[in-house]
């Protein structure tokens, strides 16, 4: 039984309406009378907070239904109907999307509030919030869409918004290029998504192209088709969620304002890929081989980006690589058919990553847009709230036991072991250690030791309340979110996993308690090793290092960007110039010019025929009439 609820349609509509209103206000007032920042700020926060309330309502409504029937949907209208392709603009909520909805709207609300403080004094304050609302609206379409096509609208929408926001400080060309890069790399992934969608439609789309029908018809597919579809969709996911080989855009995306980074990394955009794989779990669970590819891609991404993260000197880049790395864990989880574990990590990650980014924003704000961690130090006394909240976030990210990140990461690693993939588990533990190391390297360098730049240090000050309150709320979330899915070994009930169960086609591997203890033990040991090394090296001040050999190679992210440039960008540009300088002038231009010349001549003839004399026009009519009569008499015979 499916319940219908029109308010589902309202959820994405609210932020979109907000974006329109703020955008129009900004457009109409930017040249003459500037509206106050307070007006924009309040207007912008209405939509996210309302959607959060609606998200709670969705959750409660679903909760009130029996477990098997936890689905509500709303069909707004038939979007288009061509041949067999009948697409409704419909929204659909089940436990999976309701969980996504809850934390997306929650973190987005906090980020909106925080932005009021962070963006204060910005020249185009209104534009920023219009984009931010649009971003949230698109993400909600993505989450609530009732089929791949509606999801694709949101999918493209968040791509567009990320472009707009990454290149928000558009006076600097580098930022615009970073936006371009994000957009273009995402397009490559989108191509995979579109192709996957097309294959899926070709195979079983005729009898309904929404999730429910697709799920019901999935058994009609041959396993080759499923594999192909899953691989293509995963290519899309690697674009949005920044996995090998398409992760290169995410570190550059730091060019945007820091709240945007928080929004992209925590609540929207990058989680889309994981969500999509979980959404299509009814397909992925049928092809374990593809799942393994996903898992290995994920864990290798985690490894590679953790290595990069250890050598970065920009506070936001450290966090960016940590996101890529954590996303790798999530894909390892969903690849191993542990969908609820993967989604649970998305959930906890949203809290602590938003927290860390907003904390980093607070540091950057305090230091007047200095982002190099080698110029910070000793800020713990100056920014106490930021310090304590970020410390909680860092502990959660590093996977310290009672914090949220520990439970979700551990769940994935345990399942890797339980499903018989010790390789993935081993790399995972290694990455856990590295995560602890680079996270605390950052914490120690920024907050401990003595100031490296006295001038910056002296002018540092704690951020206003509007920024610190979201930090504190998120810190509470980062502390306790993990408790929601406490595994049985700690006496918990795995609430989140049970909640998600009806949405996902999950396998539940059986493993002994020893395995679980081994997994937990290894993670904890890795965490302590990582943090100890970090403390030894950076705990009480360290000098700016000079990278040589491997470190330098890793600092330059294995020169992947240069490699892509050499292998892909330059050949592409070469083809482009070949077309510009050879094909177009030498080969294709002639016929094109000839055609235009022909039409121009014909146009002139017809223009001349418009002589302007009524008698001539009447003659045309008579001739036309005669010819038609002739045709008529011919057809009568």
């Amino acid at each position, binding site marked *: 039984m499916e319940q219908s609820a029109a308010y589902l349609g309202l959820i994405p509509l609210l932020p979109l309406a907000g974006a329109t209103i703020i955008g129009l206000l900004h457009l109409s007032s930017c040249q003459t009378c500037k509206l106050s920042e307070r007006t924009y700020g309040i207007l912008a926060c209405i939509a996210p907070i309302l959607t959060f309330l609606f998200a709670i309502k969705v959750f409660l409504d679903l909760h009130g239904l029996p477990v098997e029937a936890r689905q509500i949907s709303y069909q707004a209208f038939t979007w288009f*109907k061509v041949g067999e392709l009948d697409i409704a603009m419909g929204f659909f909520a089940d436990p999976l999307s309701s969980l996504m909805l809850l934390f997306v709207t929650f973190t987005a609300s906090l980020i909106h509030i925080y932005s009021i403080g962070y963006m204060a004094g910005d020249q185009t304050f209104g534009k920023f919030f219009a984009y931010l609302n649009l971003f949230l609206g698109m993400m909600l379409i993505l989450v609530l869409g009732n089929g791949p096509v509606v999801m694709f609208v949101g999918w493209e929408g968040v791509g567009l918004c990320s472009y707009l926001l990454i290149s928000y400080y558009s006076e600097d060309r580098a930022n615009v290029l970073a936006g371009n890069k994000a957009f273009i790399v995402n397009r490559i992934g989108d191509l995979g998504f579109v192709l996957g969608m097309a294959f899926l439609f070709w195979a079983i789309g005729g009898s309904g192209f929404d999730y429910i029908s697709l799920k019901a018809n999935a058994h009609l597919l041959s396993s080759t088709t499923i594999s192909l579809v899953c691989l293509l969709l995963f290519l899309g996911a690697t674009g949005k969620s920044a996995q090998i080989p398409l992760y290169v855009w995410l570190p550059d995306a730091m060019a945007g304002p820091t709240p945007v980074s928080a929004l992209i990394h925590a609540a929207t955009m990058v989680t889309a890929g994981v969500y999509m794989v979980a959404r299509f779990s009814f397909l992925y669970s049928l092809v374990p081989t593809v799942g393994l590819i996903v898992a290995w891609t994920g864990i290798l991404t985690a490894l590679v980006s953790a290595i990069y993260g250890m050598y970065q000197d920009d506070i936001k880049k450290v966090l960016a690589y940590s996101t890529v790395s954590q996303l790798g864990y999530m894909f390892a989880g969903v690849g191993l058919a542990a969908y609820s574990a993967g989604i649970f990590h998305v959930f906890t990650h949203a809290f602590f990553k938003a927290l860390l980014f907003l904390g980093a924003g607070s540091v950057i704000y305090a230091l007047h847009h200095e982002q190099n961690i080698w110029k910070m130090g000793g800020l713990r006394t100056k920014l106490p709230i930021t310090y304590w909240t970020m410390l909680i976030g860092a502990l959660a990210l590093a996977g310290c036991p009672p914090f949220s990140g520990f439970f979700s990461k551990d769940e994935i690693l345990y399942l890797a072991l339980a499903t018989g993939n010790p390789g993935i588990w081993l790399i995972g533990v290694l990455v856990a250690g590295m995560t602890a190391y680079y996270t605390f390297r950052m914490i120690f360098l920024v907050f401990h030791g003595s100031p490296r730049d006295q001038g910056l240090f002296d002018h540092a000050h704690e951020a206003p309340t509007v920024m610190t309150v979201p930090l504190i709320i998120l810190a509470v979330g980062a502390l306790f979110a993990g408790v929601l899915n406490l595994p049985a070994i700690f006496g918990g009930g795995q609430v989140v996993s049970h909640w998600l169960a009806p949405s996902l086609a999950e396998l539940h591997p059986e493993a002994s308690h020893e395995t679980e203890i081994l997994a937990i033990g290894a993670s904890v040991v890795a965490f302590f090793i990582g943090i100890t090394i970090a403390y030894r090296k950076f705990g009480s001040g360290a000098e700016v290092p000079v990278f040589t050999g491997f470190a330098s190679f890793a600092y330059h992210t294995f020169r992947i960007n240069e490699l892509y440039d050499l292998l892909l960008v330059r050949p592409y540009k070469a083809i482009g110039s070949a077309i510009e300088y050879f094909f177009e002038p030498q080969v294709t231009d002639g016929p094109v010019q000839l055609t235009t010349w022909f*039409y121009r001549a014909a146009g002139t003839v017809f223009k001349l025929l418009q002589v302007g004399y009524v008698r001539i026009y009447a003659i045309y*009519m008579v001739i036309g009439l005669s010819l038609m009569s002739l045709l*008529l008499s011919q057809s009568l015979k």
Partner: protein
Amino acid sequence: MTCDIVPLLPLGIVGFGAIILMLLAAFEKIHLEVAAVFSMGVFALAFVMQLLPAGPDNLAPYTALFHGMLVTNEFTKVAALIILACGFFTAMSSTSYFRLNSFCTLEFYCLMIFATFGMLLLTMAHELITVFISLEIVSLSIYVLVGYNRKSVTSAEAVLKYLMLGAFAGAFFTMGAALIYGAVKSTGFEAIASFIAAKGLVQSPALLAGVFFILFALMFKIAAFPFHAWVVDVYDGASVPVTGFMATALKTAIFAVLANFLILDVGLKDFWLDGLFYITVFTLFAGNLIAIGQNSLKRMLAASGIVHTGYLLIAVIAVSSNTISGHIILFYLAAYAASTLGIFAALSYLGGKDEQRSTFDDFKGLAKVRPYSAAAITIFLLSMAGIPPTAGFMGKLYIITTAFQAGQTTLAVLGIVSSILSMWYYLRLIISMYFHEATDPFEIVGSPFAPVCTLILAACVFAISLFPIAI
């Protein structure tokens, strides 16, 4: 054979409104812009009335009124809505135009409402004499409107050309009606349909010739090749609001008649298919080629109107006796009306005094000075050219899809080719607006009505494209 009052309400409101305005005009008691607002009110009220459900018989193919002289169904209802909306937006944008050009008097609006009255009647007419009378109500009002600017020579020239050629075509219509009456002994569409169903078209030469003449007259009104030549000169000579009104509302009304007439009997249409096929192809290409050669915007838009007639004819050809394809004709008409009226609304405040800005070159650099106006015009042009996500694109998509479904592959392909050709002159204006430096300050004086109207219509272009119709 019920005589329900509800379907006639809009007609009554429009007619009554016109008479009241006429009386007021006789005493010159009201200001011009009050009259414009009054006519907007009349159109808006009639529009709302038109939205009312037309009674329980609505599901039948049509409900007959006045013993089958008039009929109403979903098709006529939507056609009337389009016409009323055209009237509303024309009245709205004309206020800006007449602040710059001072030849307007109160009777202008009366005539416009009378013309609308005729058009509404035309969409519902189901009998030849009714068609003729309503056609004449429309034509007479429009003749006067075209020649309204008595000081302008081109305007006088336009009205004479239109009048003479229109009389020529009107003569054919009456001749055709007489011949049909001779054959069928009735002028009702219902009777003609049953006659054809019983005896066949070919058996009666009088009927054949009669239908032939009537089609010819209607082809003249929609400016199909080779009866298109008047349209460029007349559109050029008429003032901007009148041209916009003619190009949209009149075309909608005539297409409603044409569709009503052609779907009388399946045999009737099949019989004309060959002839219509050639007319359509030539209409598409002649329109495009004429438009390519033009320098004046109004002449270009007139020529592009010929091309759109061609597209609508594709839809007419693909109309089978089921009513579904009628939706496509109406959808295309609505899309076309929104974009055309939008451009004319923009022209009515950008054209300047005495329409001094009229060629492509006059609009050079508009985007630098008036970015929003330029953006709106771009939206309208892209919609006319059929670029997604505009209404024009969806309209063309539907038409070409139906053509394929009806087996008219050649027409569908030629339709696509013609759409590519049309980019030539639509993009030309966009290039003028965006890729040149502005020399003209484009100062706007006048009421804010026309800019607002442009904005609304630009939104409509997108809104209509979202309107779902089943193919």
